[in-house]
């Protein structure tokens, strides 16, 4: 054993170096604190994807949006069109992953104030009379597939059936974390922030567990996706 | 001569006695005499104190006014009325209060002025409005010389109506400042 020791040490050291270096490359940018970016699928498709070169002019984009807003509002079918994944993804192919993330946060940020109003149009397709909008936050750098996030949101929202509560506070929220494998299987479902109300937490967990997700987008390089969902109860009075 | 003198003297004495008897007899005669006589108590003038209750100012049937047992209405004090949502005094009210002031100053009674409202509006605000009415009346009476200390105020708001109808007439009846025994 003592004879092979130096070789063992060498191999271990090599592995260690590789791991550390490679790991550094992937997580080069520090994980920013999650900020709420109201997400509108239409906006993402119409502007970002079509004019990747124009992305540096974020200020203009919100105004451009007013027309697509109007046309999208009525026919829900338009949104369905987007789920065949290829359409929105194509423009992305031309872009290097590193370049895009640098610019993307800004246009979405300027849109924050204005985009909240049209959100109900996106949620109108749901069967449950849900209030509040579709909100997807992303550390866009790692997972620029907002349409997939929409899928998750849509599935879980449909399964989530929160009951009326007799509580003292005006709003309730809990957070559930889970992982999606490449094949779309959900695992590691756990409650990472409780609402303080047992039945409410349990219903959120149940909603996640009952959801079936499609496989992760092929363009996504990771082996799994970590997802945290905030379940917010809007006050009914 | 001496005998005649004696007879005359005796006669005069008898006459004088008779006169005296007559005179004294007149004084002792009972009241069959038709001449009006002075009342007995005139003889005791020096101990007479004029009782207040015997000054018949308002009550003309000779009854005694006792403010502790009588309601102010019984000795002539009258309520005043107000316009909707108002606590100001109009000319009519001021006239009534002027009369009330005279009575109250004379009677010297402690009186409770209560403010009332019609049923429109909330219980709470009507309590406050009723008090404003009572205060307005008290302040006006005080300005006419009625001592402040003799007037207490309270408010019943809409809770002690005089008329239980839901008509303008009933409402008008209830918007008042009322005088009562405290």
């Amino acid at each position, binding site marked *: 054993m003592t004879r092979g020791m130096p070789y063992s040490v060498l191999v271990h050291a090599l*592995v260690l170096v590789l791991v550390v270096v490679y790991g550094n490359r992937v997580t080069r940018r520090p994980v920013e604190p999650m900020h709420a970016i109201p997400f509108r699928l239409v906006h993402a498709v119409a502007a970002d994807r079509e004019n990747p070169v124009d992305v540096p002019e974020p200020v203009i984009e919100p105004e451009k949006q007013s027309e697509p807003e109007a046309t999208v509002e009525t026919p829900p079918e338009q949104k369905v069109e987007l789920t065949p994944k290829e359409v929105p993804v194509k423009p992305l192919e031309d872009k290097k992953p590193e370049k895009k993330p640098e610019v993307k946060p800004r246009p979405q940020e300027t849109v924050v104030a204005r985009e909240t109003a049209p959100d109900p149009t996106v949620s109108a397709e749901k069967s449950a009379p849900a209030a509040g909008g579709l909100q997807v936050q992303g550390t866009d750098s790692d997972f620029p597939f907002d349409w997939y996030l929409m899928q998750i949101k849509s599935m879980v929202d449909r399964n989530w059936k929160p009951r009326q509560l007799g509580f003292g506070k005006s709003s309730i929220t809990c957070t559930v974390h889970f992982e999606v494998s490449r094949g779309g299987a959900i695992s590691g479902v756990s409650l990472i922030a409780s609402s303080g109300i047992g039945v409410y937490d349990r219903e959120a967990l149940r909603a996640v567990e009952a959801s079936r997700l499609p496989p992760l987008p092929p363009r996504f390089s990771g082996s799994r996706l970590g997802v945290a969902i905030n379940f917010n109860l809007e006050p009914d009075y | 001569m001496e005998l005649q003198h004696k007879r005359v003297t005796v006669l005069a004495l008898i006459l004088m006695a008779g006169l005296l008897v007559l005179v004294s007899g007149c004084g002792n005669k009972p009241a069959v005499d038709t001449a009006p006589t002075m009342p007995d108590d005139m003889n005791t003038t020096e101990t007479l104190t004029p009782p207040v209750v015997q000054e018949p100012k308002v009550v003309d049937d000779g009854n005694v006014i006792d403010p502790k047992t009588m309601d102010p209405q019984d000795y002539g004090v009258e309520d005043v009325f107000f316009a909707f949502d108002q606590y100001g005094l109009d000319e009519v009210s001021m006239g009534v209060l002027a009369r009330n002031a005279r009575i109250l100053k004379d009677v010297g009674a402690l009186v409770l002025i209560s403010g009332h409202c019609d049923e429109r509006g909330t219980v*709470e605000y009507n309590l406050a409005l009723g008090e404003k009415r009572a205060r307005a009346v008290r302040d006006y009476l005080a300005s006419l010389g009625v001592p402040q200390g003799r007037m207490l105020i309270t408010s019943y708001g809409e809770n002690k109506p005089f008329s239980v109808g839901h008509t303008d007439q009933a409402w008008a009846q209830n918007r008042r400042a009322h005088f009562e025994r405290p």
Partner: protein
Amino acid sequence: MSQLSMSQLSMSKLITILLAFCAVIGSAVSAAAQSSDVVIDITQRPYLKTDVLVMPLDILSGGQTAARGGDLIGAVILGDLDLSGLIRTGISTDTPDSFQFEYLIEGRVEGPLLDEATSGEEAPLTVSLELMTYPDRQILLSKRYRPLAGQQRVTAHHFANLVLDMVAGGKGICMTRVVFSRGAGDRRDLYVVDYDGEGLLRVTANRTLNLCPSWSPDNSEITFTSYHGGQQGLYSLDTGTGKVRKILALGGLNYGADWRSDGKELLVSLSQGGDPEIYRVGTDGSIIKRLTVWPSIEISPSWAPGGGELVFTSDRTGTPQLYIIDKDGSGRRRLTFEGQYNDSGTWSPRGDQLAYATRIENLTRLVLIKPTGEDRRIVTGPRWGNCEDPSWAPDGRHLVFTSDRSGVFKLYVYDVVEESFRQLTFGDDPDITPAWSN
């Protein structure tokens, strides 16, 4: 030689362990680097109720007495769950498919043994109640009570409260009551009724006007205004002993008391200074602070939950309107701008809205509004006649108010979510100034 090899051995072991540790860390880092974390927000306004099946209680023994008791307790539990507005109740498994029970309530009643019954004294029933999930029947609550006949209702209320807390995450109002003033002419007395309209009892009989009652935060006292002795004064009734004590009777008006949630002081309107102003007053009647100083009418104070600010009515602009100020009297802002006459503001225990009365064309109507002054909603239409004196239930969802729609003022309860009404008191005498307990 052996010593050298020994140290070499331990040294190599140490290095191996260190490297293995590093490898583990490294792989963990790489694994984390491989999966990204996204955050999604989902928001819904709840409209579903929790489905609970309430089975009739099994009568194990005790004949008629036990059967009646069991029947009453079951009915009261059912009523409590329905009145909460949070539960959809069923009484049998024979229901349409859409009705899928999540919970089940079962129970048993045992009557007194024969020798207990013949002893002449009233013997209590033994009541066991359970709440369980359905259909797996996992027991969540199991309670055992020994109520006398007069305690059966409160037993059912107590259990229903526990059920609501467990399945709907909130404090139930099943044990709450409403105090109010009933009577006409110059006699009005305080009465207390259970929140479901039962158990009416009279608490004053002093031959004068008693009104504007208010509960202390722990319900141990009811303060009220009385004309006892001819002058208005603020009194307090101990709900345990029935004894009444005078808090204060300063000249003029003393009314509209509202307790702060810590039970240490009250807001009250006093006109000793010439016109009604809002004061903070200790429970012993001592004046803590005068909050308003205007030469106009300031009345109807009501604390915001938390006690940082309060709403009150002032007619400084000529007509009564609602204002909000901080507890030290600063930061005044006007709340109501619509309507010529707004009074009786009361802040919901949830802090999210206020109820008050507005007068429109000689008719007072019930209104809800947000503390920002936005979202004003008139709750009662003209068919409801005059609606006044709202008072919130501790769940912030129900409120009691008076209405003379039937010709005489009676108490009604409003559910702000379902926008539904139910009558709480009946009879010929007017009921006014209600207050919901805590």
